[in-house]
């Protein structure tokens, strides 16, 4: 027998399920773990529903629970953050590399982006260290504001910004490396004279 509280919860949660699964999938890297993570998070959300203040941001609230559930469940795996080299973290990384590639100089650079496969982008995201991946997902895929993300991951605004900017730069570097490895870029890396 479905209670009123359950019905109310289902109505609240339904529009956000695709986003929650999508984020969980990118964080856990596999379908079964993602489903378990969302399930656990939603049980917690349901039990805490009385604490949710109506007319506040339900989407941010439930994402905060998802992130906390992820961090608790994967504590061991994420205890030692991957070491990331901050060398080469230049702005416009991908644009500059494409600009230096002789056979691409006459082609609009946006074409390179359009020709990427979904799986290339997903794999590049999946390889980002989790703290960068999370912030890039929340901002660029889910469209949360900096303030909402600060609240969701429980970190200061400055941390959100630095992780986001570094995450995007790393993502560009990964995509460039895939493109070379997979033969999308057939040119040698030839700096312009």
């Amino acid at each position, binding site marked *: 027998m479905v209670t009123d509280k359950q019905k109310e*919860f289902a109505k609240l*949660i*339904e529009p956000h399920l695709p986003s929650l699964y999508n984020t969980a999938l990118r964080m856990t890297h596999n379908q079964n773990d993602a489903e378990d993570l969302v399930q656990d998070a939603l049980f917690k959300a349901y039990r805490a529903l009385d604490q949710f203040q109506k007319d506040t941001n339900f989407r941010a609230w439930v994402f905060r629970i998802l992130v906390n559930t992820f961090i608790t469940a994967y504590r061991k795996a994420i205890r030692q953050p991957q070491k990331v080299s901050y060398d080469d973290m230049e702005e416009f990384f991908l644009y500059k590399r494409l600009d230096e590639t002789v056979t691409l100089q006459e082609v609009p650079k946006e074409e390179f982006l359009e020709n990427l496969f979904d799986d290339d982008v997903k794999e590049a995201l999946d390889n980002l260290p989790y703290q960068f991946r999370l912030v890039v997902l929340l901002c660029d895929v889910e469209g949360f504001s900096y303030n909402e993300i600060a609240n969701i991951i429980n970190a200061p605004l400055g941390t959100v910004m630095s992780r986001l900017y570094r995450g995007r730069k790393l993502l560009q570097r990964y995509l460039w490396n895939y493109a070379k490895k997979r033969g999308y870029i057939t040119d040698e890396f030839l700096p312009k004279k």
Partner: protein
Amino acid sequence: MSSYQKNKPEFNCADIEEYVQQYLDNVLDEEKKRLFEEHIEYCLPCDKKIEFERKFKEIVRLKAKENLPHETIDRKLKELLENLY
């Protein structure tokens, strides 16, 4: 040129590099946003880079989304409801 014009603040290409991400996320204050846009108005290389970065953000959003079919969402919601206590 008046001294006012000489001292008039303006953004150079390095400033564009520094603020590009905040500009694209629409979090720059009004003054910086104006200076940013004034620069890319006349600096074609920077303008092209900004357009590329804008496209990059859009591509990440579009290609990283998993499109769950309606039936899957309905099934998951049903499962969830059955398991709530």
